[in-house]
């Protein structure tokens, strides 16, 4: 299970039409970090960054994820200008933020807005692990909360792609409180009768898993994603019981009833469309009546 930034950052021709990142490298081939096989870049792109040999789902940037998920030209970004402060004056935090901004071209680990999937409007949020491990600080919490609130207000489904190592330590208790805030916003969706679908992608951990991610109406996951509460090392130390081979994988979590389906990246968009259409029908009727 690779935890380091994947091969996708070396991709030459970018499928990612929404990306802020310049497509620089011109390499025609790349190597899968999982099976080590050499892949033709174009194949890799067309296969949505899933290795054609081993099926490994390589991580996607938020922009790339949006591009392959929502209808073309329907995404309208909200709250792009929100930036983290340094409330605790935490060692090296501003430097880490700047470095991440420079690397990714975005202000924080998440992109949010309104879009359509198969012509049905959704309020969508996509985490980006490449920005400080997708960690949830105040900006993340605020953007997730607004995403859920927008869904509730507009009576449209919320769709959230999770990818996070957990809470952002550098914002201390403010970061912990984002767990509460985002979960509270889920309650708003429930009150409004709008469905909320979360998707666990690699990795979905700790404070994010233990808050908004896990209380969605429907939970999907990409194959083999790392999903867990504590670091595997901590879990192993804590428990005397044997650690299963597939511990903290999507497959493990699935077999333990914590998610509904493992969905291949190619089928994610259509699965979401179906769910949005069926589960959102009640809210749509209410809205139209």
């Amino acid at each position, binding site marked *: 299970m690779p935890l380091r930034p994947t091969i996708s950052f070396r991709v030459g021709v970018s499928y990612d039409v929404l990306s802020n990142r310049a497509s620089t490298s011109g390499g025609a081939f790349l190597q899968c970090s999982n099976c080590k096989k050499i892949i033709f870049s174009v194949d890799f792109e067309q296969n949505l960054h899933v290795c054609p040999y081993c099926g490994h789902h390589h991580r996607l940037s938020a922009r790339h994820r949006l591009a392959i998920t929502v209808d073309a030209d329907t995404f309208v970004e909200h709250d792009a200008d929100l930036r983290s402060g340094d409330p605790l004056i935490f060692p090296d935090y501003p430097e880490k933020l700047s470095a991440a901004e420079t690397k990714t071209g975005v202000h924080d680990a998440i992109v949010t807005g309104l879009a359509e999937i198969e012509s049905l409007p959704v309020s969508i949020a996509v985490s980006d692990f490449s920005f400080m491990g997708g960690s949830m600080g105040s900006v993340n919490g605020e953007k997730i909360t607004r995403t859920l609130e927008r869904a509730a207000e507009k009576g449209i489904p919320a769709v959230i792609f999770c990818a996070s190592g957990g809470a952002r330590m550098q*914002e201390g208790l403010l970061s912990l409180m984002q767990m509460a805030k985002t979960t509270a916003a889920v309650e708003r969706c429930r009150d409004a009768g709008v469905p909320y679908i979360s998707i666990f992608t690699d990795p979905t951990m700790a404070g994010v898993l233990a808050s908004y991610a896990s209380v969605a109406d429907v939970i999907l996951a990409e194959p083999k994603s790392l999903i867990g509460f504590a670091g595997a090392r901590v879990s192993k130390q804590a428990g005397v019981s044997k650690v299963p081979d597939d511990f903290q994988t999507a497959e493990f979590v699935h077999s333990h009833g914590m998610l509904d389906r493992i969905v291949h990246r190619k089928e994610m968009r259509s699965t979401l469309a179906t769910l949005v259409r069926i589960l959102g029908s009640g809210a749509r009727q209410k809205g139209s009546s």
Partner: protein
Amino acid sequence: MAKDHNEWERPLRELEENLQKLRELAKKEQDSDKRSSLSDRIQDFEARRDRYIDVMYSNLGPWEKVLVARAQKRPYTLDYIQALFNDFVELEGDRRFGADHAIVGGPATYDGRPVMVVGHQKGRNIQDRQYRNFGMAKPEGYRKAIRLFEMAERFRLPVITFVDTPAADPGVESESRGISEAIAASMLKMFELTVPTVSVIIGEGGSGGAIGIATSNRVLMLEHSVYSVIPPEGCAAILWRMPERGADAAKALKLTAQSALEYGLIDEIITEPKGGAHRDLVEVSQAVKASVDRHLEALLTLSPTAVKTDRYDKFRAMGNVLG
């Protein structure tokens, strides 16, 4: 850097041991002059002890707060329940898998008023600590809490929670049974409630394990309790790869009640007795009661809908965002 409260209070404990010896000597002493001299020395020692406590506790650093918050002698949830509640009927089942002993709860009366009380529970001796899993609740604990919150809503009982956990249980079994889901669902359930909820952080407010039962209308913290997104040792391990730099991490994390109040994340600090909550259960209980009473009174004037909105707005405002 002292490793635990015991080590940190050693000078004080030695002073008290000497004091105790002097008292015993005085008791046995027949000669009135010698007794009078011993009595002087006792008074002197007592004064030194009090000054020592004053100095130690008047200006606790973040790491010392961590030590005090974790102190084995610190009052735990059941101590407060014993002191402040009547008719407590502990309800133990989660109706799903097991009976978790790291979270206790049930209906009780508080000032004659029916309420629901829920809290983490640590153990004081070795067996009890194991029985309580060191105050680290498993999914069953949070699911039991959810049941009790639902019951509170159904029967219109205000909810009081006591928060005191190093963390939720991180073991393989807890992962298997969905500790993350359980914590998130518990928070969600608390946000659904239309009865008033008040939480008191009495010791360690350890990350997700703590907030799982702390999303209340009012959150109060004891003066020397701590509340943190990560244990300072864990933070130090990540930042500097040196868990032993916990004291530095504690400072960086701003995990004290004073910082939490400053950032607007809690509603009030409850003053502890001189020398910490563990020195006077009666006094600290009364202080907790006074604060809880005040907030509960205020909340009881709100309509059910207003209670829910109040809670939402409170947490909605938390965060530090530019732009």
